C-alpha cells in the first residue's frame, strides 16, 4: 500500500493506494483531521454572515412595521368624501390585516349564520378572516373550558350563554373587555352604549361593573300563538296561566276534530331547557342571588305546568326548546312559549308551515306579574387567544347598529337585536310587527340566578321538575328536595 499525505484546501488527507489481488490499484482518500479554516476563509464567512443578518433584519422590519398613522388615513378619507361608519374598523383593523380568527358559535335556529355573515362582511372590510365553528350548547361551552385548561389558544372568541356568564367570568374562562374599551385605537367613537338594551347589558354582558362580553343575541321568553285560529274563534292571547290552560284545553278537546292541533308544546326535556318553563311561570319577585323554589310562586309554577300537560302535544316531555318550536312551526300546536329567535325560523318557508299565521304576545301573568325569562348570548374573548384585539374589533363590529339592522332584515339569518334603536326601527318593525311585545318582555324580564353554581342548581331543578311532572314525587316533596339541594350548593 502506498500512502501520500497532503494538505489540500484545508484538509489533511491521506491518499492511499490499495492493490487488488489482480494487481489493480485503487485510490482511497482518508480524511485524517477535520477541516481548519484559513484567515482568508474567516473573512469571507464573516462578511457573508453580516450580509445575511442585515438582509433578514431589513425584511423583518418591512414586514412588521406599523401602517401609516391615522392622521394620514383621515387625510385620505376627507380628501375623498365624508367618513363612513365602517371606516373606523378599516383603520383600526389595519395592523391585524391577514389575521385569521377562530370563533365558536352556538348552532341551531340559524344563530351561527348571523356570525358567519358578519364575519364575511368584516373580512371584506378589513382583510381579517373569520372562521366560525358551529357547535351545540354543550359542545361549545366544553370547548371553551378545554381551551382554557389546556392553555391551547386554539380559539379566539366564543358565543357564551348569558346563563353561564357568572361561572365563566369567575373561573377565568373569559378575558375582561374593559382593557379594549379603554384603548382609543380599538374603541369605535360611534358605538352607542346607551342604545343597548339595559337588562341585557346588566345581566349578561357585565359582571361586577366590568365588561366581559359584547351582546350577541338578546332574547327573552315570549308566547308564540296561532293568530289565524285565535281570530277564527274570536280569542285573545291568554293573560294568565289559568287562561293559558283553558285555552290549551279548548284546542286539544273542544275543537280538535276540526283543527287537529294540540293546545301547546312545552320545553320539558331533562336538561338546560326544562327549568325555563318554571321561571316564566314564576310570576313573583325572583331573587337572582338566592332563588327560592318552595315558596308559593315556585310551587304554583310547578302546578301550572302539570295542569297543561294533558292538553299539550303527546311528546312534550321529550321536547327541548327547539323541538317544541318545531312542533309549533309544523302546525301541531296552537301555542308555544319559547325564545324570541324562533321568529327567524317562523318566517322561513323552508322551515315553517305557518308562515303568516302566527303572532307573539308576552308570556302570561303569574300570581303577581309577568316574569319572562331573559336569555341571550354574549361574545366573549378567550384568555389564551393570540389575536385578542382583532377578535374584539370583530365583535364590536358585529354589535354596531348598522350591522345589527342588516342581519335582522336578512331573511336568511336568525337573529334578535340587542339595540333599542334597531328594535324600534320602522323597517324592522314593518318586518316584525310583534317587536313591541318583545320589547315589553325584555323590559320586564328576570334573569337566571347570578351565581357560579347556577348550572348545578339548574340540573337539580330539572330533576325535581321532571320527577313532579312524571308523578315520581309530590309537589311539596319535589320542591322541598330541590330547595334543600340548592341550600347545600349555595352554602
Amino acid at each position: 500500500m502506498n500512502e501520500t499525505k497532503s494538505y489540500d484546501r484545508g484538509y489533511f488527507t491521506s491518499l492511499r493506494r490499495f492493490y487488488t489481488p489482480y494487481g489493480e490499484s485503487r485510490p482511497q482518500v482518508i480524511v485524517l483531521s477535520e477541516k481548519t479554516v484559513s484567515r482568508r476563509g474567516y473573512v469571507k464567512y464573516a462578511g457573508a454572515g453580516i450580509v445575511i443578518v442585515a438582509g433578514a433584519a431589513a425584511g423583518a422590519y418591512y414586514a412588521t412595521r406599523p401602517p401609516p398613522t391615522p392622521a394620514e388615513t383621515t387625510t385620505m378619507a376627507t380628501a375623498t368624501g365624508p367618513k363612513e361608519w365602517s371606516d373606523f374598523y378599516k383603520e383600526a383593523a389595519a395592523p391585524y390585516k391577514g389575521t385569521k380568527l377562530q370563533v365558536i358559535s352556538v348552532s341551531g335556529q340559524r344563530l351561527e349564520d348571523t356570525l358567519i355573515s358578519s364575519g364575511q362582511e368584516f373580512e371584506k372590510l378589513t382583510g381579517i378572516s373569520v372562521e366560525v365553528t358551529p357547535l351545540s350548547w354543550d359542545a361549545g361551552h366544553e370547548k371553551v373550558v378545554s381551551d382554557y385548561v389546556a392553555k391551547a389558544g386554539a380559539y379566539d372568541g366564543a358565543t357564551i350563554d348569558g346563563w353561564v356568564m357568572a361561572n365563566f367570568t369567575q373561573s377565568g374562562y373569559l378575558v375582561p373587555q374593559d382593557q379594549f374599551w379603554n384603548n382609543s385605537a380599538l374603541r369605535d367613537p360611534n358605538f352607542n352604549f346607551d342604545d343597548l338594551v339595559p337588562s341585557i347589558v346588566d345581566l349578561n354582558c357585565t359582571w361586577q361593573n366590568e365588561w366581559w362580553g359584547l351582546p350577541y343575541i338578546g332574547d327573552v321568553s315570549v308566547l308564540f300563538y296561532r293568530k289565524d285560529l285565535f281570530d277564527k274563534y274570536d280569542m285573545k292571547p291568554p293573560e294568565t296561566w289559568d287562561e293559558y290552560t283553558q285555552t290549551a284545553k279548548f284546542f286539544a278537546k273542544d275543537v280538535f276534530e276540526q283543527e287537529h292541533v294540540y293546545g301547546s308544546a312545552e320545553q320539558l326535556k331533562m336538561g338546560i331547557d326544562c327549568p325555563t318553563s318554571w321561571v316564566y311561570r314564576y310570576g313573583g319577585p325572583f331573587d337572582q342571588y338566592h332563588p327560592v323554589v318552595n315558596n308559593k310562586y315556585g310551587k304554583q309554577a310547578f302546578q301550572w305546568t302539570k295542569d297543561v300537560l294533558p292538553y299539550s302535544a303527546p311528546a312534550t316531555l321529550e321536547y327541548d326548546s327547539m323541538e317544541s318550536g318545531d312542533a309549533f312551526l309544523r302546525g301541531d300546536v296552537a301555542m308555544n312559549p319559547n325564545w324570541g329567535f324562533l321568529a327567524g325560523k317562523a318566517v322561513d318557508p323552508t322551515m315553517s308551515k305557518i308562515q303568516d299565521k302566527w303572532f307573539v304576545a308576552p308570556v302570561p301573568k303569574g300570581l303577581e306579574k309577568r316574569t319572562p325569562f331573559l336569555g341571550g348570548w354574549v361574545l366573549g374573548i378567550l384568555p389564551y387567544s393570540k389575536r385578542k384585539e382583532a377578535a374584539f374589533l370583530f365583535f364590536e363590529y358585529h354589535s354596531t347598529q348598522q350591522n345589527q339592522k342588516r342581519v335582522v332584515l336578512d331573511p336568511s339569518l336568525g337573529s334578535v337585536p340587542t339595540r333599542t334603536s334597531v328594535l324600534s326601527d320602522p323597517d324592522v318593525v314593518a318586518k316584525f310587527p310583534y317587536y313591541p311585545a318583545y320589547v315589553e318582555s325584555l323590559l320586564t324580564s328576570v334573569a337566571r340566578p347570578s351565581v357560579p353554581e347556577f348550572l348545578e342548581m339548574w340540573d337539580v331543578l330539572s330533576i325535581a321538575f321532571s320527577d313532579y311532572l312524571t308523578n315520581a314525587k309530590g309537589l311539596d316533596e319535589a320542591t322541598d328536595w330541590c330547595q334543600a339541594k340548592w341550600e347545600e350548593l349555595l352554602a
Partner: protein
Amino acid sequence: MHIPFFSSKRLLRYALIAPALIWVIVFMIFPLIYSLNLSFQTWQPPEPPIYVGLKNYIEMLSDERFGNALQNTSIFTIGTVATEMAIGLLVALSISRLKPRIAEKVNVVSVIPIVMTPVITGILWRMIMHGDYGILNYYLSMLGLGRYSWLSDPKLTLFSNMIVDIWHWTPFVALAFTAGISAIPREPLEAAQLDGASYWQTFKNIMLPYLRTILMLVLLLRVVEAILFFDINFILTKGGPGVRSEMVSLYVYKNAFWFWNLGYSSALSYIVLIIADIIGMALFFIVIGRKKK
C-alpha cells in the same frame, strides 16, 4: 447472538417501537396517572387544585345520585349483555347452517349497525321512538298495541336505552360467534351426529367448549362497553326523566363539564375503572378458569 447495547440493531428495534410506546405513554398511562392524582384534589378553576386526600371517595359513598347511576348501569349491563349474547349466538348458529354464499351476504348486511357511530345511532333511534311522529308508535298503533312515551315515561326510558344498545351491538356478537363456529373442526361434529347425539347435546358438549374463548372475549368486551355506555344515553334521554336513565358515564360527564367538579369526577371515573376491572377479571376466571400447571 448477543447484541451490544448501543449497536445499531438494538437502536433500530427501539426506534421502531418508540412511536407506539410514546402513544401508549401519552394517551393511556399519563391520563391514568394524572386523573388518579386529580381524584385526590378539589379543583375549581381558576383557583389552583387543592389536595383533599380521600374526601372525594368518602363523599361518593353518600352520593345518592351516584348510587342511582350505578344501579341503572347494573340493570342496563346485565339486561343488554345477556340479551345480546343469547340473540347473537342464535343468529350465529342460524347463519352457520346457511349456504356459504348466502351466509356471506347476511354477514355483510348485519354489519351495518356496528359501523354506525353511536351519535348517529342515538339520533336515528330518537326519531324512531319519538312520541309524536316516530314510526315505532305508528306501527304499534297499527297493530292495536297503543302508543308509548319511549323517551319520557319513567318506566320505559331505561328499557329504550337497552333496546338501542341491543340493536347496535348484537350483530357484533353474532359476527364473533360466527367466526368461532366456523373454526370448530368438523370431525367431532360429524362423529356426534353418527353417534345419534341431538343438536342440543352437540351444542352443549362439543360446540360450547370450543366457543369458550370467543365467549369470554365477547362477554368481556360487551360488559366493559356497557358499563361505559354514554353517547346514546346522552342523545336519547340525557338521563331523564329526572335521573331514571342516568348512567355512571353521564353522571361523570356532568360533574366534569357541567358542574366543573374536576376532582370529584376523576374520583368517580376511577371507581368505575376499578369496578370494570374487577368484573373483567372475575369473568375471565369464571369462563376460562385457572390454567392447569
